[in-house]
């Protein structure tokens, strides 16, 4: 039975406990690029203030596997203003672009449905990076490998939930069997709809073959920085190939025609009339 997470963004308070729990369990450092060493005190000094609401993480990286996004939507008169908050990470797609692209088998789908990234098998080729429609997989210059959330592979294979879900104080991140979580998500969506929140939607039932980490949003996915219709690159292969072949044929034909025309002109067009 696949396991996954249901992220109810409508009760996410943006405390970032999930980010800290993720770093603690996975032994990820404070983002190296964000700290410099004070020349006098010889201690690290954080300088990664972004000015983008309360998000100073800015991106999913080799050391930030989770990021809480803050979206401020306030008209000038503040009427109906909203501060949307959602905790973002790897979605463990059923049709995982990264896994499709991996040449060594470092990226694997386990029996619980999560997409793990085996560090001892990864050769750092980075093919997975552009293959992820969400920009989740990142290259770590510290390890020389690709890195991302593994759905706490070793925890969930030992009867525990994910570290982020465990740390979440409001239950916004729930870990469990995907089928059970979907029931919970459907009930929550129905509730929001009944309260007149018409734009509420579940993100992840259809996208990328279905996401094992899926979201309840209060507005369109793009508002939360998620692609409305994420494209797994490999699924574009037949179409891309067809376009490439057609293109090649067209170029070939054009070349033939061109050569032919040139030949004709060289020969003064007499042959055509022959």
């Amino acid at each position, binding site marked *: 039975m696949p396991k996954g997470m249901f992220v109810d963004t409508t*009760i996410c*308070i*943006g*405390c*970032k*406990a999930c*980010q*800290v729990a993720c*770093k*603690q369990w996975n032994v990820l*450092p*404070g*983002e190296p690029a*964000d*700290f410099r060493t*004070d020349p006098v*005190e010889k*201690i*690290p*000094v*954080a*300088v*990664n*203030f*972004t*000015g983008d*609401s*309360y998000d*100073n*993480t800015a991106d999913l990286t080799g050391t930030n596997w989770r990021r809480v996004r803050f979206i*401020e939507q*306030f*008209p*000038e008169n*503040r009427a109906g*203003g*909203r*501060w*949307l*908050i959602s905790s973002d990470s790897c979605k463990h797609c059923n049709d995982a672009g990264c896994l499709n692209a991996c040449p060594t088998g470092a990226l694997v789908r386990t029996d619980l449905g999560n997409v793990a990234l085996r560090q001892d098998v990864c050769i750092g080729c980075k093919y997975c990076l552009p293959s992820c429609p969400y920009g989740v997989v990142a290259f770590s210059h510290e390890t020389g490998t690709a890195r991302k959330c593994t759905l706490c592979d070793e925890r969930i294979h030992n009867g525990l939930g994910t570290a982020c879900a465990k740390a979440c*104080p*409001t*239950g916004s991140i729930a870990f469990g069997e995907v089928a059970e979580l979907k029931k919970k998500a459907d009930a*929550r969506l129905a*509730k929001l709809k009944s309260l007149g929140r018409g734009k509420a939607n579940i993100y992840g039932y259809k996208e990328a073959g279905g996401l094992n980490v899926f979201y309840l949003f209060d507005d369109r996915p793009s508002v939360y920085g998620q692609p409305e219709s994420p494209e797994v690159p490999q699924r574009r292969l037949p179409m891309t190939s067809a376009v490439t072949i057609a293109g090649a044929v067209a170029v070939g034909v054009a070349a033939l025609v061109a050569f032919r025309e040139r030949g004709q002109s060289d020969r003064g067009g007499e042959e055509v009339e022959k």
Partner: protein
Amino acid sequence: MGSNMAECHPVAFRWPLKAKTEHDAVLMHVDPRFTRTSAMCDVHVPIRAGTDIVFLGGIIRHVLESERWNTDPFFREYAVNFTNAATLVSPDYKDTEDLGGVFSGLSPDGKKYDNASWAYQRNPPPSPPAGKPETLSDLLLRKVPGRPKTDPSMKNPRCVLQVVKRHFSRYTPEMVERVCGCPKEGFLSVAETLLANSGREKTSNITYAVGWTQHTVGVQIIRNAAMLQALLGNIGRPGGGVLALRGHATIQGSTDIATLYHSLPGYLNMPDGRKAHDTLKDFVVTEGGPVATSFWGNYPKFIVSYLKAQFGEAATAANDYGYDYHPRITGDHSHMPMFLSMAEGKIQGFLVMGQNPAVGGQNARFQRKALAKLSWMVVRDFFETETAAFWRNSPEVKSGELSPKDIRTEVFFLPAAEVPEMDGTFTNTQRLVQAHDKAVDPPDDARSDTWFTYHLGKRLKAMYKESASPRDWAIRNVTWEYEPESREVAAWRVKDEPSAYRILKEINGYTVADGKPLPTFALLKEDGSTACGAWIYTGVVPEEGKNRAASRKADAWISPGWGFAWPANRHIMYNRASADAAGRPWSERKKLVYWDPAADSGTKDPAGKPVIGKWVAPSGEGIDFQVTKPPMFRGKDLALGFDWLSGNDAFIMRADGKAWLFAPAGLVDGPLPTHYEPYESPVKNPVYAQQVNPVAKVWKVEGNPYHKTADPQFPIVLSTYRLTEHHLSGTMSRWLPWLAELMPELFCEISPELAGEKGIRNGEYVTIRTARGEVQARALVTRRMRPFTVDGKTVHQVGLPWHWGWQGSAHGDVVNNLTPMVGDPNVSIHEGKVLTCDIRAGKKGGGAQHA
């Protein structure tokens, strides 16, 4: 209101969210800023900082004038039986409406109130008992006053309800809009929602934190909420109440076991050299006398048992149980006056545990400079805090104001253990005591604060062992037996950690003869046969070896088996009010404690017949009332405590058994909340001619200058506050890269309107200035901040979280360099939530704006 619960109490905020998602509760947030709490709520109403009393007063007026309050019999029944609404106030009382914004009793210099005119009208006192008083209780019995006069029709113009109505009559929705700067529609939606969700079937809760306390009218704001909840019948009932969110993690415990200078454990008052406290008798009569008709009628039992816990066998009836040797206070020794004395060179030594005043202290520059006047200072902490390092690298050292070679303070920095490195308890917001176990030894020489205090005490006792001087009596005789049993330390490297269990047992109390723990404070005695460190905790160790704080049995509601809620595992205080005057539940839905007339009380009357009828709580909730007192019981006029209180006197800690809409005693700044502007404000008080709380604590000393009202140099309102990502002065967060990176640098929240006026760009540097100092911060320009229109004039407001300092991984200026030392007159808390400032683009000293 007055709280940013989602950010500052994120773990507890799961409960409001559960109420919202599972029970359709409406969450409303009234706050100057749009915070992460506002983002979670159904309604956010912004108000100008420091106008809470106008908003709450407006709701009280709205409620009292509403059709619902005046027609639904629930509200009147609750008010007549459980509040002092019907009680008559002295004809000498004059309201702010009569005196232009002040109450009767203000001294000619306008600095102090005499509260005699705020008293109740009373019937003649009962005739005193015959014979000579023999016990402390006999003395109190002679102090029992006549019962307050009441008018149950609540029509008498001197009755509290009418006084309250007149007092708030000018707090109209239009006034709220004009003073608070919020549209009256927003105000009315809050008032209507509260009213609609209160009554027999529903209750509403009001939650606050330091957003209400940190004002020169802090106590009055909180009282205002308590009054509103009493009027709405929301106290003593499930889902109701006024919830004070206490700080992390055991601030409640620290007031219970009295780290406050003026209080002994269990909220007994501290012996005071300025009061009539010469002997134990004097102390009991002065402190216990005025409250003897409440449960405080047991004051003699509490204080004698406390002294027995302190001094053990040396405390005898002959020596007043060692009362003469107990320390006394001689003035206001709270945080700010302490630093003022320090600056004057009156304090030699300073022990700092769990605090970082170089960052957290108000007017922090003043406080850091005061540290340089000490002879010695001991700082115990996890990291070298700014307080520990002030002598070598503080901004004052860098600027040359202080020089390490001139500072005479000898600083001892000792490593402290963290919570998982010791056994102990937390007491939270709900007075819930929860034990925690040691998980790991502290590293190297780090030790718990308990260890330090215990071993310091042992060494002091050894030093004074041979002293014959009477002034050393207390240190020689103080009980100090907390040696661990070998099994308590068997697993650990640190073998001399004191026993947390033995400390808790002393707090709980025991019989002196056999040392057995006391299961309930009802068994405390005033004859020296019982010892008890803090009576409110009695029952947490009900029998030897049993610690209810360690119990972890949860259920779907009250969870009486989870930890121990003092007093006596009562989770909802005054819960007798969850039933009507006749003892019936107000409704099936809100049933909690009620009178079962058929139940066998388990006691027998003097004739030996079983007493039938008792209060019951099927949920297992502790009953905050005398279990066998029938609802219609009429209290005896010449009696103490429970014997004086009647069957509808649910508020057992009040001398009249009622919730106080009008406070005849106990407050130094008036019996009713009144809007005063913050001590520093850009506007003149639109409500009264009196600008500020006349009796606010003000210290006009060098180095602590204040801004004038509507000072053109400082036209902008400033609030200081906290974020989820950091903890207080940052000692537990700024040193940890995982937390430091989340909020890496000091920032200032600014509305785009103000940023536009000042040429400030998002992400770049700004400088914020007051007469006390200036700080630079990164600008966070956001529409979550907004300008307010007050009396037609625009008032801008900025906000600064105050977690940063110059030590640790995440650096920033100390925001408290800006704040003044000015305080609430009742509790001396500073006014950190609102002051005035100026702001400009660019770094301090004219540096570029660019980051």
